[in-house]
């Protein structure tokens, strides 16, 4: 089993294999985006309380979900690299950071654009918003650490430790709307009983969330391929690929 794992977990194999996934993931992502945007912007009826402004939900909530999901991927991949020395896992963790930071940034800014007309303010220092801001700083700290440390193996280890310590923030973000009274509305989808959102509004939201997920899968593979090239820049197979590119 380990033999299998090491063969397919080798950077070179990952580099070759991942290439064929990217077009498929991008294609599915594109279709989902079109369906989600039509469903969310055109087909879904305006909210009875918030009018048309609720349509920000279709970029805000998927971004917020992805910001948490990518952090968990980054921390798990970091741990895998730390414990079992899987190089591909290190590359995945490093590739995830800018994407996670992007989605956290989007969740904060689109939330702000939604908060202004609904709450009357761009920002409040409540638990949900503050813990999400801390998540952005965790991502930025991870990226700064990767840039600051020249040796990429050391950088991966240091980043993994930072990411693992930061995991404590994830349940805080998730439960913040229940633990503290805040302006931010409670969960409408991930409740144990039926979601308190109409199907015509919920379906586009789930489609957009899937679109974001496929986007992440496609771009993180693309990015991890680049990180692997940087990691393996002195190896023979990378020179081979470079020579092929120049020739072709």
């Amino acid at each position, binding site marked *: 089993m380990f033999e299998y794992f090491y063969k397919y977990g080798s950077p070179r194999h990952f580099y070759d294999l991942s290439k064929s996934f990217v077009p498929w993931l991008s294609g599915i992502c594109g279709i989902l985006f079109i369906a989600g945007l039509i469903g969310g*912007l*055109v087909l879904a009826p*305006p909210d009875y309380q918030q*009018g*048309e*402004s609720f*349509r*920000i939900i279709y*970029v*805000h909530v998927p*971004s917020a979900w992805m910001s948490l999901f990518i952090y968990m991927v980054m921390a798990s991949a970091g741990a895998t690299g730390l414990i079992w020395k899987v190089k591909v896992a290190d590359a995945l963790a490093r590739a995830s950071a*800018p*994407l996670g930071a*992007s989605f956290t*940034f*989007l969740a904060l*800014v*689109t939330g702000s*654009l*939604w908060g*202004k*007309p609904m709450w009357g303010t761009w920002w409040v220092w409540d638990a949900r918003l503050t813990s999400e801001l801390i998540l952005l700083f965790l991502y930025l700290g991870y990226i700064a650490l990767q840039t600051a440390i020249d040796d990429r193996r050391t950088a991966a280890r240091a980043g993994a430790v930072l990411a693992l310590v930061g995991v404590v923030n994830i349940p805080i973000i998730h439960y913040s709307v229940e633990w503290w009274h805040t302006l931010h509305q409670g969960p409408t989808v991930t409740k144990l009983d039926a979601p308190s959102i109409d199907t015509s509004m919920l379906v586009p939201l789930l489609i957009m969330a899937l679109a974001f997920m496929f*986007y992440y899968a496609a*771009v993180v593979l*693309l*990015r991890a*391929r*680049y990180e692997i*090239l*940087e990691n393996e*820049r002195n190896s023979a197979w*990378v*020179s081979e690929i*470079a020579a092929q*590119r*120049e020739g072709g």
Partner: protein
Amino acid sequence: MSSLQSFLHMGGYAMYVWPAYFLTLVVLVYNVVSTIRRESRFFRMLAESKKRQRRSR
């Protein structure tokens, strides 16, 4: 008001809804473009350092 106009008007919330969507688009596209550019820069640098090595020999 035509239906396209009323769609763009977003019930008076256009100045909040459209920037949210536009910004999302910009950030998503930026991540793809920057990744592709980094990869081509990597290969360019690698080719240059190979050339330099050959010359110094």
